[in-house]
């Protein structure tokens, strides 16, 4: 397939008020307006969304998978960062 002048876009959908936009996938489109239309047609066919963001894929700065040990492993040994050492009183209810 010829995809000259057709760039890649990442799609984010907010499914309900109060929730954050969530990445759902990507698509090809010639410009921002068409990317938004295509996102509507591909990712909201079953009533998934209230709001759509499209972002040019090349605007995303990604971490390097080769750095994953340096970036993420130091956190693994620091279980005290998880808020699991407190007794939550029953009256507090759902947190």
């Amino acid at each position, binding site marked *: 397939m010829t*995809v000259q002048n057709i760039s890649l876009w990442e799609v984010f959908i907010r499914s309900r008020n109060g929730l954050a936009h969530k990445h759902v996938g990507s698509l090809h489109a010639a410009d921002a307006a068409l990317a938004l239309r*295509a996102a509507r047609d*591909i990712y909201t066919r079953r009533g998934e969304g209230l709001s759509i963001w499209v972002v040019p894929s090349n605007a995303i700065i990604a971490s390097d998978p080769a750095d994953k040990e340096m970036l993420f492993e130091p956190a693994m040994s620091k279980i005290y960062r998880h808020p699991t050492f407190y007794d939550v009183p029953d009256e507090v209810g759902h947190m």
Partner: protein
Amino acid sequence: MATAICIQNSALFMYVLGRADDALILGHRLSEWCGHAPMMEEDMALANMGLDLIGQARELYTYAAEVEGAGNDEDKFAYLRDVQHYRNVLLVERPNGDFAQTMMRQFFYSAFADCYWRAMMSSTDPTLAAIAAKSEKESAYHLRHSSEWIIRLGDGTDESHRRAQSALNDLWPFTGELFQANPEDDALFAGRIAVDPRGLLQPWTENVTAILRSARLTLPQSQWMQKGGRSGQHSEHLGHLLSELQSLQRTYPNATW
């Protein structure tokens, strides 16, 4: 081989049937793109629009059956009528052609449907008003989608401009029929059951010419318009379309799966 059904004649019945036929035939034309569109994203968009239109057709056929009261239903209207009993405008049976032809046809029809359904939301017939309220949102989207493509095709490359201009020249003579009113519809207009399409010509022309101007496309000089679909005189294309659409029910009557 299942035999064709004949249809009785009442103004409201024929009117609703005609609108249902517009939606079914255009929806079927869009479905022909399924798996063949220039890109996957557009394949989905065309199928979505086709499904919107077929949904509108189903509601309108169901209401037509209720008005007719002869025991017919949506399937019988769709699958067991011969060409001359279809009442759709000629525009919607035009072949898909290239992508520009399909989008131009969609643009002309959606620009009409958008103002038509909005006006029909105040129909004194509650069923038609309810169908209009649902269809209006769908048509508004179809109009936006097709308008954006018309602008990009017309104001795109030399090749896309040439194809869009050629689609405009070919399809323009089929737009007049959208605004044609039958004398037997006068009572429906007077009772505000239906909207007189002649009143929609001016807003349609303004909307359409504004988009065509942004697309750097020029209207053909000739204002001669085709007609015939509303009285059952169709082009040779509709027969071929129906032979595919109806083949299963005609070959295996009442087949279900």
